[in-house]
C-alpha cells in the first residue's frame, strides 16, 4: 500500500511537468488553429538563453526570467506569427503541419551551433532544493512551486480566454478570420497575441523543468512529445482535461516503473526486452490510445477547399522522358564520381524513394504521415533477415513486411484526420524507434546486408548498385505517375478533397485508406531496403524520428504531389553531404572556415524551405515546373495543350459590393467563405 502511495506522489510530480509543457501548446492551438510542433523547441531556446544569462553572464534568475518571459519569448512569437504563420491562411492541413516542423528543425539545428554540445550545462532548481516529505516521497521546494505555477497558469489562462475581451477575440479568430474581420476586430493583432502568449508559456515550461531534464537540445525539445498525450486528452482545446491527461500520463509512467513485471525469461532469451521497452514508450503508447478513443468531429463537409495547393496532372510523355534522363545521367555520372560520392548519390535515391512514398499518401490522398522512416526501417530489417546471400527475396520481403505493418497501423487510424492522424503516426514512429528498433532480436545493434543478386546479375560494385537504384526509383516513380491517372488515383484525390461527398456517393473510404497506407509503406520499405543494401548494413541509426523531419520537410518543400518533387528533395538531402566537400579545405571567409560554415548553413536549409512553404505551398519543384512550362510554351509559340489553370485565390471579402451591386452568387460566396452552415444560423436564431 505504501508503495502505491509513493508511486502516486511521484506520478503527480511528473504530471506537473507535463501539464506546464502541454498547456502552452493547447493555448496556441486554441487561439491559432495551428498545432505548434515547434513549441518544445521554443522552450528549449529560451532555456538555453536562461542558462546563458544566469550561469554564463551571472544575471539574477528573476531578472533573467523577466527578460525572457516578458521580452524575448513573446517578441519571438510575434515575429513567428508575422513572418510565418500568417501565411498559412488557406493552406492545406499538410502545409499547416509541415511549416511548424520546419521551425522546429531550424531551432534544433541552430541551438548546437550557438551552444556547442562539447560542454555539459546545468541549471539549478530555481526555487531551491529544500526537501519536503510528501507521504514518504521527497519533493523539492522547486517541484512544489512548479505544481503551484501549473495551477496558477491554468486558472489564469481560463480567465484570459473566457473573460477578457482580447482573450475572446483570440478564440474567435480561429473559428473564422473573415468573420472577425467583418466585425471590426483585428485578427492580425489577436493572432500575434496568441503566438506571443504561446511562446512565453513554452519558455516558462522550459525554464521551470530544465533542472530535471538537463540542458540538452533534444531533451528539452522532445519532452513536449511526451506531453502531447496530455494535450490530446484535452482534445487540444480544454485546459482542465489537459491537466487530467497530464495526471494520467505521469501516473502511468510512475506505476510502470513501480509495478510492471520484468520481461519474462522466455522473451529475454530471444533478445526481446519487452518491459524496459514498454516503460520508455508509455507516453507515445498512451498518445496512440487516446487518439483512438477521443471523439472526433464527424464528416460533415467543408465546402470546396480553396487551398492554394495545386495538384498538377502529370504528363505521361514528359514523365517518361524525365525518368530516362535521370537514368541516363546516373549512368554517365556514376563513372566519374569517387566511391564516396557515389555512395552519397545512392543515398539520394534511397531518400527520394522514401519521399516518393509520401506522394500517393500525402500528395494525392491528403493523409499525413510522420512514420515513413519507420516503414523504411522495417524494410531494412526485412532485407537483412531474408536477403541473405544475395537473395532477391529480401527486397520482396521488405515490400511485403512494410506494407503489412502499414495496413495494420492504418486500421486504427482510419477515422483520424489531419493533426490527429499526424500525431498517431508520430506516436507509432517514436514507438518503433524506442521500443522496437532497439531490441536485440530486431537489429541487434546493426545487421550486415548482402547486395541482391538477380541470377547472373551481380550488383557488388557501388556503381552497378547505384544505377540499379536509379532504375528502381524511376520504375516506382512511373508507377506513381500512372497511379495518379488511374481509377485509384482519382479516388485518392476525391478522398482528400471531400470525404463527405465520397461517403454520400457510396465510396467506402476504409478500403481506400488502407490500400494507400499499405502502398505508401511498401514504397518506403523498399527505400529503406535499398539504403541498407547500399551501405551493406541495416542500421536503425538511419531511421529515427529526427531523420524523419528533414525528409518530410524536403518532400513537401520539393512538392509532395509531384514525383519530381521527391527526386528534388532526395537529392537535395544527399547533396548536403557532397557539396561541402567541393569547397577547398582551409578556405576562410571573414575569419570563418568556409567549408564548416557552409555545412552549417545547409543544416538549416530544410528548415528554411519548410518555413517558406507558408508563402509557396506548392513547393519548389512546382515552381520550377511552372517556369519551365512557361518557357516551353513561349518556345512552342502556340498553346496547343490544355494547361490546367492555377487555383483562383479566394475572393477578398472586404471588396464585395464595392465595384458593383451584390448578386445572389456573392451572397452564396459569402456564406461559403464564412463557413456558415445551418447549425450556426439555427443556433444563432434560437439564441435570440
Amino acid at each position, binding site marked *: 500500500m505504501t508503495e502505491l502511495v509513493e508511486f502516486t506522489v511521484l506520478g503527480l510530480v511528473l504530471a506537473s511537468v507535463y501539464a506546464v509543457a502541454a498547456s502552452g501548446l493547447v493555448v496556441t492551438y486554441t487561439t491559432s488553429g495551428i498545432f505548434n510542433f515547434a513549441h518544445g523547441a521554443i522552450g528549449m531556446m529560451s532555456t538555453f538563453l536562461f542558462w546563458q544569462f544566469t550561469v554564463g553572464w551571472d544575471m539574477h534568475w528573476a531578472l533573467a526570467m523577466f527578460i525572457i518571459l516578458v521580452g524575448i519569448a513573446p517578441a519571438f512569437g510575434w515575429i513567428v506569427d508575422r513572418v510565418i504563420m500568417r501565411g498559412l491562411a488557406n493552406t492545406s492541413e499538410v502545409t499547416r503541419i509541415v511549416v511548424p516542423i520546419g521551425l522546429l528543425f531550424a531551432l534544433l539545428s541552430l541551438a548546437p551551433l550557438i551552444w556547442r554540445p562539447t560542454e555539459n550545462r546545468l541549471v539549478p532548481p530555481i526555487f531551491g532544493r529544500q526537501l519536503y516529505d510528501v507521504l514518504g516521497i521527497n519533493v523539492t521546494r522547486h517541484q512544489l512551486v512548479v505544481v503551484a505555477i501549473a495551477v496558477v497558469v491554468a486558472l489564469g489562462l481560463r480567465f484570459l480566454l473566457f473573460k477578457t475581451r482580447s482573450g475572446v477575440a483570440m478564440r474567435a479568430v480561429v473559428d473564422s478570420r473573415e468573420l472577425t474581420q467583418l466585425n471590426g476586430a483585428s485578427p492580425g493583432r489577436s493572432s500575434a497575441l496568441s503566438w506571443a502568449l504561446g511562446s512565453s508559456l513554452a519558455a516558462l515550461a522550459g525554464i521551470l523543468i530544465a533542472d530535471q531534464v538537463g540542458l540538452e537540445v533534444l531533451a528539452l525539445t522532445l519532452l513536449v512529445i511526451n506531453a502531447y498525450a496530455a494535450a490530446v486528452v484535452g482534445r487540444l482545446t480544454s485546459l482542465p482535461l489537459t491537466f487530467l491527461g497530464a495526471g494520467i500520463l505521469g501516473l502511468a509512467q510512475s506505476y510502470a516503473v513501480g509495478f510492471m513485471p520484468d520481461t519474462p525469461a522466455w522473451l529475454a532469451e530471444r533478445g526481446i526486452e519487452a518491459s524496459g521497452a514498454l516503460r520508455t514508450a508509455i507516453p507515445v503508447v498512451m498518445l496512440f490510445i487516446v487518439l483512438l478513443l477521443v471523439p472526433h468531429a464527424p464528416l460533415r*463537409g467543408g*465546402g470546396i*477547399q480553396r487551398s492554394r495547393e*495545386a495538384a498538377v496532372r502529370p504528363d505521361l510523355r514528359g514523365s517518361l522522358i524525365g525518368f530516362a534522363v535521370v537514368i541516363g545521367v546516373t549512368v554517365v555520372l556514376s563513372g566519374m564520381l569517387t566511391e564516396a560520392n557515389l555512395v552519397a548519390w545512392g543515398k539520394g535515391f534511397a531518400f527520394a524513394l522514401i519521399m516518393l512514398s509520401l506522394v500517393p499518401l500525402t500528395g494525392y490522398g491528403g493523409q499525413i504521415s510522420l512514420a515513413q522512416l519507420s516503414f523504411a526501417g522495417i524494410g531494412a530489417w526485412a532485407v537483412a533477415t531474408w536477403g541473405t546471400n544475395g537473395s532477391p527475396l529480401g527486397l520482396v520481403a521488405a515490400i511485403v513486411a512494410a506494407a503489412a505493418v502499414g495496413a495494420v497501423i492504418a486500421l486504427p487510424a482510419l477515422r483520424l484526420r489531419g493533426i490527429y492522424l499526424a500525431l498517431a503516426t508520430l506516436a507509432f514512429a517514436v514507438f518503433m524507434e524506442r521500443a522496437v528498433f532497439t531490441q536485440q532480436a530486431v537489429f541487434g545493434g546493426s545487421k550486415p546486408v548482402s547486395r541482391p543478386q538477380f541470377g547472373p546479375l551481380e550488383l557488388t560494385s557501388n556503381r552497378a548498385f547505384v544505377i540499379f537504384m536509379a532504375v528502381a526509383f524511376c520504375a516506382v516513380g512511373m508507377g506513381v505517375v500512372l497511379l495518379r491517372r488511374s481509377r485509384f488515383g482519382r479516388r485518392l484525390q476525391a478522398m*482528400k478533397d471531400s470525404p463527405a461527398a465520397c461517403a454520400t456517393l457510396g465510396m467506402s473510404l476504409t478500403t481506400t485508406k488502407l490500400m494507400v497506407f499499405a502502398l505508401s509503406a511498401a514504397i518506403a520499405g523498399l527505400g529503406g531496403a535499398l539504403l541498407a543494401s547500399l551501405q551493406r548494413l541495416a542500421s536503425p541509426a538511419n531511421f529515427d524520428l529526427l531523420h524523419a523531419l528533414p525528409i518530410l520537410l524536403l518532400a513537401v518543400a520539393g512538392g509532395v504531389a509531384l514525383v519530381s518533387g521527391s527526386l528534388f528533395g532526395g537529392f537535395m538531402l544527399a547533396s548536403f553531404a557532397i557539396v561541402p566537400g567541393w569547397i577547398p579545405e582551409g578556405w576562410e571567409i571573414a575569419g570563418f572556415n568556409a567549408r564548416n560554415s557552409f555545412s552549417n548553413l545547409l543544416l538549416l536549409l530544410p528548415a528554411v524551405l519548410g518555413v517558406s512553404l507558408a508563402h509557396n505551398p506548392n513547393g519548389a519543384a512546382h515552381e520550377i515546373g511552372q517556369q519551365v512550362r512557361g518557357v516551353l510554351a513561349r518556345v512552342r509559340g502556340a498553346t496547343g495543350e490544355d494547361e490546367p489553370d492555377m487555383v483562383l485565390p479566394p475572393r477578398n471579402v472586404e471588396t464585395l459590393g464595392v465595384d458593383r451591386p451584390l448578386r445572389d452568387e456573392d451572397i452564396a460566396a459569402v456564406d*461559403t467563405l464564412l463557413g456558415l452552415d445551418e447549425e450556426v444560423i439555427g443556433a444563432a436564431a*434560437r439564441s435570440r
Partner: protein
Amino acid sequence: MPLLEVADVSVRFGGHMAVEAATLSADAGSVTGLIGPNGAGKTTLFNVICGLVSPVHGRVRFDGDDITGTSTHQRARRGLARTFQRLELFGSLTVLENLQVAAEIPRRERRAPVATRVDAAVEQCGLGPFLHRRADVITTGQARLVELARALVTEPRMLLADEPASGLDSSETEHFGDLLARLAADGLGVLLVEHDVSLVMKVCSRISVLDYGKVIATGTPAEVRADQRVVQAYLGVPVEAPT
C-alpha cells in the same frame, strides 16, 4: 408506398433540438419540397437521412427497409444520393474525373458501363463545354450542375437536393428546375430543399414546411401557400403564385 420515409426524427445539437419529431415522406417519380426559414433544420434533416448525423429519436426508411443504423456509404449504395448546400466537388479533379470517380464505385448489381453512365449524365446536365476543366475553377452555376450529374451517374433512386439553386441567377435556376422535373418524370424521386420559393412551388408536387425543427405543414403547393402557419413563419415574405 413512399420510397423515403422519415418518421418522428429528432436531432439534438449541444443544448438545443435542431429537429423535433419531424415526419415526412417522398415518392419515387416526383419532386417533394422541403422549405422553411433559415436555420429551420432542413440541412440537418438531410444529414440524418443520408447518415452523416445520428438522430436521438426516430427512424428513416428507404424502400421499406429501416436504414436508421446504417452508414452513409451503405445508404448511398442502396440508391440514396445527395448534393450539398456548400458545394462538395472534388476540386483537384476535372469535371469529367468527378463523374468518373462516382461512376467507378463498385456496386453489387450489374449496371451500365462507366462510360455510358458518364456520357448520359454529361448529356442530361449539359456539361460538355467545360468537361475538362478543373472543378474548382468553374462557375457556381456550372458546379451545381456537376454535383447533380455526379450524383446521377450512380443511378440513384432518390436524390436529396440541398439548395441546388443557391448562387444561381434566375435563368440558371429555371433551367435547373426544368432539369429536376424531367428527372422526376423519368422515375427519379427528388427531395428538394430550396430557398427560392417560386422554384419550389413550380416544381414540387408536395411540400413539407419546417420551422424551428418542427414540421408545421404538409401538402400540395396550393395548400401550403394558403396555410396560415406557413405565412406566419415566413412573416414578411410574400408568397407569390407561380406564373
